[in-house]
């Protein structure tokens, strides 16, 4: 990994820059949800996750499942920036016959554990990975990134109960709580409050953090102060579209792709 990519601030900025280029070229959606989780990815891949870009199938690696599969551009961007595959692959995002699909795809993409895209699947897969690791490589940790909208899915709560009951202490769920789901504000569509209490009620350790504060994310991921065997939920309060003023907190950027002028303006903001 190039040395500067172990700095989450640098990595987050590079991810956002790459995502802008990808969604612009591909005329693709979901930039808002990519930006709300860019800082989380930057901390995870900036040194926390024990993974080997030159040996993606290393048996004892940590596993990351990105359950909000629509944020694929950010996932591919971070993987390329830390060396899983060349940056040039990003040019093929959503292109005919290329591996980087619009929803997170593991086929032919080193570093992606599992393909997602339909919401509500990832936490169950994460439970299986964590249970498998518990028996075969106890040092391996499993992280699942969830969107707020997908917490509407019943399967998430099946998995939440399961992980608490089976004390999957090596499992961490990070909720990218950007407050805007696919067709409206979370509070208007299906209110999640009190969200922390819901996870606590399922016997998870819960912390609420600023999902754009790299030090806070890193501190929350550190192992201190945890209940023995409890899975961990990090409710990351984030801003949809974070980093580009005209994209922030705007439902439209769940769908829109920046045109050439918007791309230039956005890149200028990131560089400012």
């Amino acid at each position, binding site marked *: 990994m190039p040395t500067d990519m172990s700095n989450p601030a640098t990595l987050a900025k590079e991810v956002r820059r790459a995502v802008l280029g990808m969604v612009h070229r591909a005329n693709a959606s979901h930039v808002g949800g990519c930006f709300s989780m860019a800082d989380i990815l930057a901390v995870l891949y900036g040194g926390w996750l024990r993974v080997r870009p030159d040996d993606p199938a290393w048996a004892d690696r940590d596993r990351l499942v990105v359950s909000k599969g629509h944020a694929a551009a950010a996932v591919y961007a971070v993987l390329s920036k830390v060396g899983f595959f060349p940056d040039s692959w990003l040019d093929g995002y959503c292109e005919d016959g290329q591996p980087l699909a619009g929803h997170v795809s593991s086929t032919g993409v080193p570093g992606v554990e599992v393909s997602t895209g*339909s919401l509500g699947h990832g936490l*169950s897969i*994460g439970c299986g990975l964590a249970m*498998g690791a518990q028996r075969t490589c106890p040092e391996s940790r499993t992280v699942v990134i969830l969107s707020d909208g997908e917490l509407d899915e019943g399967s998430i709560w099946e998995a939440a109960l399961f992980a608490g009951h089976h004390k999957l202490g090596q499992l961490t769920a990070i909720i990218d709580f950007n407050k805007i789901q696919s067709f409206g504000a979370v509070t208007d569509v299906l209110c999640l409050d009190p969200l922390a209490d819901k996870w606590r009620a399922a016997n998870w350790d819960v912390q609420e953090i600023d999902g754009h504060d790299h030090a806070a994310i890193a501190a929350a991921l550190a192992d201190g102060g945890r209940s023995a065997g409890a899975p961990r939920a990090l409710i990351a309060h984030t801003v949809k579209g974070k980093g580009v003023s005209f994209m922030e907190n705007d439902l439209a950027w769940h769908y829109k792709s920046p045109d050439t002028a918007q791309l230039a303006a956005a890149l200028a903001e990131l560089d400012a």
Partner: protein
Amino acid sequence: MRNTFIERLTDAAETDSRIFLLCGDLGYSVLEAFAERHPDRFVNVGVAEQNMVGIAAGLALSGYKVFTYSIVNFAVTRCLEQIRNDVCYHELDVTVVAVGGGFAYGAQGYSHHGSEDVGFTRMLPGMHVAVPADAAEAAAAADYMLARKGPGYVRLARGREPQLHRAEIDELASFHRLDEREGAVLILASGPVAGEALTAANLLFEAGINASAVSTPIIKPFDVDAFCALLNGTSLVVTVEEHVTFGGLGSTVAETLADAGASVPLLRLGIDHKNRTIVGSQDYLRNINGINGHAIAARIRAKLEER
């Protein structure tokens, strides 16, 4: 047959430490032995089938050979998308084992009628679909799934199905003859309803119509060459299944005949959705749907007479 299947699985887990069994809070008087002998590789996930299949995918990604267990619609339909996306897309080594195929739980109502599952699973990529007819075929189906790697579906009934094979069978084949005949009327059947197909073949034979019954436990992949070989001397093909007549065995045979350009007529017998609100015993519902031995024989005779 469900006990036979699970016994085979339990024994195999003795030597194969990759075998993991998940159930969705069902399996009373069936799964206890596995749970006792392999407690670290058995989990009752609760009444949560979507989660069960996701967990199965995660375990399979971790190197386990996973079996999930529930009643047909809960094992397949409730979590169909998890089977499609998480298991089949990734070609993971997960076998879905369902009990209550067809009208095994007929008196419990449509929620418990396994009438579309073969169609659902057959459409999924890489899925092998087995519908054993009796305990001997169930044991062979267990061996079949244990020997391969990839997504699988096994549709079982419950217990005490009539034994159609006199002895254990060495290997699950695409076609198992249930009688000594090679009749002009070829009755293909999948699942325990194959017993009704055999009754029908015997009734027809006694009435001077040369019919034979063949159990067809592997719906997918369908052995086209072996099927075409069976067509020699056949003047009518009949399919019998405890499933709707589309999506399952009848569709598979119809598609295969059409692709092969075969001109032999086909009669597809199975569950009619218009009867879905009717409840009752397996025998009662087979009669209602015209798939007990006498009804099958009568419908074949009617088909022969219309020509």
